[in-house]
């Protein structure tokens, strides 16, 4: 059986159950709500089609925030991991700071960044990069340190410089770890982007979700969430594909 068949069946079954529960009015009745507040999958699909250009426009804004933020985190995370790996002092000094960076609630820091940098893309980049940085840096660092110490000794007797050992032994060994970190990062990046847009923006899927919620446009709100999920899934899939091509020895 194909690996995608089971999850596909499950999703189809869930959508079917949802369709049944909403079209009969069961959920709305149970919650004592108006029917339009509990849209069925078909209504969401309809809204998705009707609002396609609006959704595409806003999706493009959010996708850019995710990609640029993730890109910044990738460069910074990989660079930081290598630096910490090469310097014991730096590692000991900054590891607690690295972990502390993860405990800063983005829900608090997002409005502050908006005050500092305005409504443009910069605070969004910063938030997305902040949530992506940690998994990339920590996983890559673990990967660099996973190398068998005997292999390092071996490279020394084979006349390798520190840089050559890093390039030929430690970096390839760390690659699968770095990919794991990047996959975690890309899966949570959309959440970061939505939080950043909530803190202050005039466009993007997060902005749309917030507006539609206030205007009781529930079907379109769900459509925006569906697009956001699709973006996350697609980016995750691309990374998994890249991992399989690059890490060919596993």
């Amino acid at each position, binding site marked *: 059986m194909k690996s995608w068949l089971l999850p596909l069946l499950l999703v189809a079954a869930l959508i079917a159950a949802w369709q049944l529960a909403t079209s009969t009015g069961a959920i709305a009745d149970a919650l004592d709500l108006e029917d339009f507040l509990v849209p069925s999958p078909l209504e969401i699909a309809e809204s998705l089609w009707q609002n396609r250009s609006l959704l595409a426009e806003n999706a493009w804004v959010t996708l850019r925030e995710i990609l640029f933020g993730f890109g910044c985190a990738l460069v910074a995370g990989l660079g930081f991991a290598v630096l910490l790996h090469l310097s014991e002092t730096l590692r000991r000094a900054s590891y607690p700071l690295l972990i502390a960076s993860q405990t800063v609630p983005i829900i608090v820091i997002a409005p502050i960044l908006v005050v500092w940098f305005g409504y443009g893309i910069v605070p969004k980049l910063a938030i997305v990069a902040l949530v992506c940085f940690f998994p990339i840096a920590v996983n890559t660092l673990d990967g660099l340190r996973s190398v068998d110490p*005997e*292999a390092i*000794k*071996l*490279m020394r*007797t*084979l006349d390798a*410089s520190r840089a050559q050992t890093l390039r030929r032994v430690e970096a390839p060994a760390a690659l699968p770890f770095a990919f794991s970190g990047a996959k975690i990062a890309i899966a949570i990046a959309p959440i970061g982007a939505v939080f950043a847009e909530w803190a202050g923006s005039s466009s993007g899927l997060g902005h749309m979700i917030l507006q539609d919620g206030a205007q009781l446009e529930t079907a379109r709100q769900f459509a925006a969430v569906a697009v956001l999920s699709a973006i996350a899934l697609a980016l995750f899939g691309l990374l998994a594909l890249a991992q399989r091509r690059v890490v060919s*020895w596993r």
Partner: protein
Amino acid sequence: MPGESISIRELAHSFGELQTIDRIDLEVPSEGVIGLVGPSGCGKSTLLELICGLLDPGDGSIEVGGARSAPERLGHCAFMPQRDLLLPWYSAIDNAALALRNRGAGRAEARAQAAEPFRRFGLEGFERARPHQLSGGMRQRVAFLRTLLSGKPVLALDEPFASLDAITRAEMQEWLAAALGSDPRTVVLVSHDVEEALYLSDRVAVLSPRPARIVAELSAPHPRAPDRDAAVTDPAFVAIREQAMHALREVAR
């Protein structure tokens, strides 16, 4: 590439409180093969790392071809670890040519230089194979070639065939004997297999449990004889092997 002599005087070494080596004196002539046998955990691997210059000795001196300091010795010795440690992201020939790449050769140049010995080692057709596609014996041959292509006069082999099954192991011993015959180097061979050490070496030093001292030094009757089976069943060989076993049993008490 000729070998170089090794001269070890009053060598002692500790890791913190733990003394691993206790006054070892050892002379290995150029192109000689010395076997080191001893109970596991006795400090054999530490001794190899000291000789190679991967460690600085706590006390005493080690001289390899005139090189005294650890970084200098590192330039004279190549190390073959217990597990082959072939890099899974490189092909077999790129693994073998690793030292050439480290010394600045381009990929194509390194491959070209490694091609002839690669064939000579019976690995033809497996140049592009990844390590996991090779058999245990072939992996060991690639690992030995990697050590040899470092061009170092002294080879430090740490239980090179410990992971192989008995038959492959006997074949590899015969193969290594032939390889050293056509490409002689000074070799320090650590083994826990007395028969392997006595067959491959000119002399075998028996080490005590930690802290390691040399308790017996034996001359091998038929070092690297072309017919291994005949050599190891010869009465002279069997007698020396029993002597070595006896010495090992004595120190284990």
